[in-house]
């Protein structure tokens, strides 16, 4: 009888709870708290937080082979299915009009990948391997699906840390970027007004995804899965004849895969995998990456002003980090704070969406060169 009682007790999760599990619960609740009360990336942080909570319930084995979280992880992430589908939805939501109207903003999106490489070097200096450093560096692109796509391919053991770092810092754009922008620009620069963007024809908008897809995929084939789906989604949108597909890509499909993505990422964050010095370093490197990406965009915008007659407000360079549309909104808010009649949102959307393309290119190069 007593043996049965003890066997019964041993079969309970309570008996196997560890301090690590409790810490991970605290992290899970913190993520969910931030999502609910502060509105930080709730669509991702709620499923990730819940995934973290349930994967740290002892004996449930939700990440064991053929169990529910492992199935989401295996087919969704290991098969590299979910990030491209998210990109399909993002493409259907994205208006490339501001980029087409002012194509030099594409270069600002490129400059804002600076932090990716700075964090890459920092990570190597801290003893990470090249594939790990690539996965950490790409956090600086401020693009969740691209970070996940790269990490799964190069350093899957870091997936939880890189994904949560990417989404956390994306949510913290309004906190991280303003002090950097203020430090790097003068009041006079922040007051620069930009003339209204020229109108863009429907045909140009339609041809842009085809050119971008062809060009990027030919130069960096490793980025094809993300870029092709991104541009397909945008082509749905701009063709104007498949509204149902466009609507599905940006609503139902996107929502479904977001659930699977969040819970699968959360599922990788078990205490033994996540509570390591490496994970903490990933978070620190993520902040480095993000900050230097902001600086890179700002510096190029300032440099452009040296050579260009038509001045641009250098703050829009900061929007080159891909966190769409938060980074552009931050620039708009800061511009309006200096001059309430200065409308920078559409100008900032140019580098913002260019940053997404830049990050995908950077990821493709990491996948090509960093995986050896």
């Amino acid at each position, binding site marked *: 009888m007593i043996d049965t009682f003890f066997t019964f007790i041993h079969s309970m999760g309570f008996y196997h709870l560890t301090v690590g599990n409790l810490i991970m619960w605290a992290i899970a609740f913190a993520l969910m708290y931030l999502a609910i009360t502060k509105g930080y990336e709730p669509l991702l942080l709620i499923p990730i937080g819940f995934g973290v909570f349930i994967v740290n319930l002892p004996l449930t084995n939700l990440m064991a082979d053929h169990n529910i979280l492992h199935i989401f992880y295996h087919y969704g992430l290991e098969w590299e299915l979910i990030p491209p589908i998210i990109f399909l939805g993002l493409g259907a939501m994205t208006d490339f*009009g501001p*980029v*087409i109207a002012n*194509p*030099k903003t*594409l*270069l600002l*999106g*490129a*400059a804002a*990948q*600076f932090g990716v*490489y700075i964090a*890459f*070097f920092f990570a*190597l200096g801290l003893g990470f391997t*090249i594939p790990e*450093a*690539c996965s950490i560096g790409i956090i600086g692109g401020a693009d969740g699906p691209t970070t996940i796509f790269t990490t799964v391919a190069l350093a899957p053991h870091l997936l939880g840390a890189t994904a949560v770092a990417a989404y956390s810092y994306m949510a913290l754009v309004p906190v991280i970027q303003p002090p950097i922008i203020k430090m790097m620009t003068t009041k006079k620069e922040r007051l620069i007004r930009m003339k209204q963007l020229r*109108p*863009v*024809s*429907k*045909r*140009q*908008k339609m*041809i*842009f995804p085809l*050119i*971008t897809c062809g*060009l*990027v995929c030919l*130069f*960096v084939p490793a980025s094809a899965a993300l870029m092709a789906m991104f541009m397909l989604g945008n082509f749905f949108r701009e063709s104007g004849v498949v509204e149902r597909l466009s609507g599905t890509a940006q609503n139902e499909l996107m929502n479904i895969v977001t659930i699977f993505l969040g819970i699968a990422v959360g599922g990788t964050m078990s205490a033994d995998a996540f509570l390591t010095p490496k994970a903490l370093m990933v978070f620190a490197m993520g902040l480095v990456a993000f900050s230097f990406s902001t600086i890179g965009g700002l510096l190029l915008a300032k440099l452009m002003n040296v050579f260009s007659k038509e001045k641009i407000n250098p703050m829009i360079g900061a929007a080159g980090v891909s966190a769409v549309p938060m980074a552009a909104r931050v620039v708009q808010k800061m511009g309006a704070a200096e001059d309430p009649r200065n409308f920078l949102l559409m100008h900032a959307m140019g580098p913002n969406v*260019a940053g997404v*393309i*830049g990050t995908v*290119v*950077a990821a493709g*190069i*990491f996948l090509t*060169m*960093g995986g050896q």
Partner: protein
Amino acid sequence: MMDIWAEATKIFVFGFSSVFFILGALSLSVVITRVLFEKFGKNPKKS
């Protein structure tokens, strides 16, 4: 150890310059497309 840094420098040089090159090429294609549409296009519908 030296190999890692040499490899990393290669990734940085090729990587960052490729990002600029590709986005620069894209930027140029946008300009070329615009010029072609303005020259040969028939009254493009504005959106």
